[in-house]
């Protein structure tokens, strides 16, 4: 028989310490994504993707490759954190919730690695 309340059980276990980390990282990545996104969208609009040769020549410029990689990494980070919150808020079945959280974290990581490999292949390949 459980004699202690939920509050009683959690008391004395210490402070949350990294409790604001998720929130803060989401804001920090959002701040970084403002210039990164504007830069990448402006590049797309200027026609870097009109054909294969143009896209490859554009990606071969080291600064473009570095900026695109940065954009991908920060987007991955922000998206993985944020989609996790959406799942926590709306998926109420515990098994489905944990399964979707795992799927999102794995999926976002795979997404980022595929993008980075593609960027490197385009920029460095012959």
């Amino acid at each position, binding site marked *: *028989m459980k004699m202690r309340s939920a509050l009683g059980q959690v008391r004395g276990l210490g402070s949350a310490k990294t409790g604001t980390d998720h929130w803060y990282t989401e804001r920090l990545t959002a701040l970084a994504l403002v210039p990164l*996104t504007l830069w990448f969208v402006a590049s797309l609009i200027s026609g870097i993707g009109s054909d294969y040769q143009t896209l490859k020549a554009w990606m071969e410029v080291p600064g473009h490759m570095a900026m695109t990689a940065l954009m991908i990494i920060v987007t991955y980070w922000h*998206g993985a954190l944020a989609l996790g919150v959406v799942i926590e808020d709306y998926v109420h079945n515990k098994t489905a919730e944990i399964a979707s959280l795992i799927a999102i974290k794995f999926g976002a990581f795979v997404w980022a690695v595929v993008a980075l490999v593609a960027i490197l292949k385009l920029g460095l390949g012959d």
Partner: protein
Amino acid sequence: MSPENRPSPDKRPLSPHLNIYKFRLHMFISITHRITGVGVATGLLALVYWLAAAAYGPESFARVQYVYQSWFGYLCLLGWTVCLFYHLCNGIRHLFWDIGWGFEKNQYMNSGLAVLAATFVLTAASWFIGLSG
């Protein structure tokens, strides 16, 4: 009341939910931030597919371009552009709130309307430049 007789957490009364509130434009602006965020993430799958196709060479890139430049591809891209600019503009609004700015009623009303206007202007400008270039 002994602990066993206490109502379990899921039987306790909940705070009033969405359906008791009168619809307001700012409810729409708020939930749309989440919806467009999920929309942006969905579109990012297509962006990485596009980059990966290019990494596999000119032929696979041409095949993906063919689909992306169809009317359906353009429709999806238009939806993604709207989601991206909305989430970007409203995200900046959220960052200002995070440092404590813009909580007065007229301020958050006006900033919400500014987000809607900026989304429209940025989307229209992007497509105008993108298609004429």
